[in-house]
């Protein structure tokens, strides 16, 4: 008996299998993306560690933790606001879900602003991709690559938050889309938990 016979003969429910792992396809796709992106960031961080371990004059240019602590606080808080937005969306409270999604986006913008401000501060001190006044030029390359990749994810997330939030309010998207976007945003937060100690805190000048 062919597949067509099975599906055309009223037996479709008996041959249609559940999605893999019994989770919706869009959510599975986001998880697979997250797993793949984890590998990308892990590869960058391992390469960074490899260079740091093998370079004797590795610079330690960070004098203060104030900025990075504030950035961490903002990003962690944005994860909480994302959760609150998702909860509101699941309860059908569109106005509240939209509001909390936009608050998350604003926190993301604040994070990106602080990050770019920090970049300009380092550039003003003479740091570029290939040289800096403190030691090996590899530091600038690895620092800008890792934080730049993370910042790209943050900016993409902000755009997605704005688009999905607006479309959710207009009824084109539903709470499942907010949930999938939330997965991405939490992942961006998660990556930062590794970037902070490895790239910033291990390079404090004290």
């Amino acid at each position, binding site marked *: 008996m062919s597949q067509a016979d099975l599906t055309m003969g009223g037996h479709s429910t008996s041959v249609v299998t559940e999605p893999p*792992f019994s989770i*919706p396809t869009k959510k599975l796709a986001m998880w697979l993306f997250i797993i793949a992106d984890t590998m990308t960031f892990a590869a960058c961080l391992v390469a960074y560690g490899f260079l740091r371990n093998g370079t004797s004059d590795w610079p330690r240019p960070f004098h203060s933790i104030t900025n990075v*602590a504030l950035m961490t606080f903002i990003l962690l808080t944005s*994860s909480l606001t994302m*959760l609150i937005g998702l909860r509101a969306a699941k309860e059908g409270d569109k106005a509240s879900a939209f509001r909390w999604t936009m608050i998350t986006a604003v926190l993301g913008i604040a994070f990106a602003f602080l990050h770019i401000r920090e970049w300009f501060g380092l550039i003003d001190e003479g740091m570029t991709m290939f040289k800096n006044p403190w030691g090996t030029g590899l530091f600038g390359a690895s620092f800008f690559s890792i934080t730049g990749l993370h910042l790209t994810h943050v900016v993409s997330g902000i755009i997605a938050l704005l688009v999905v939030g607006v479309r959710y309010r207009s009824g084109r998207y539903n709470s499942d889309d907010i949930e999938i976007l939330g997965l991405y945003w939490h992942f961006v937060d998660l990556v930062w938990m590794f970037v902070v100690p490895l790239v910033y805190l291990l390079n404090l000048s004290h």
Partner: protein
Amino acid sequence: MTTATDHKSSGIGKDLIIYFCLLALAGVQFVIAYQNIDIAQKFTRMLAVACIEASLAVLFFMHLWTEKRAFLVFVVVFTISVLLGMQYGWTDSTRMLVGAPFSNVK
């Protein structure tokens, strides 16, 4: 659509607890940064804290804990396997400083 979202009727309390745990753990990382210890120890401790933070975020913020067990096992085993696979080259990272690893072995 949801499998992991049907559980979200427990209020915001659990999310807040996880949030404050993550803030506290992030604070611990900053404290470790100012400890007067060897850089290798510092690295190990910070990485351990980061792994705990990541686990909390994945399990509770991303709701992996409430997904199907098979999916949870798939994500955890696959990810950890690949991450561990990336660690094979560390001995080679000191090549530039001290020469090729095991070069003095006769």
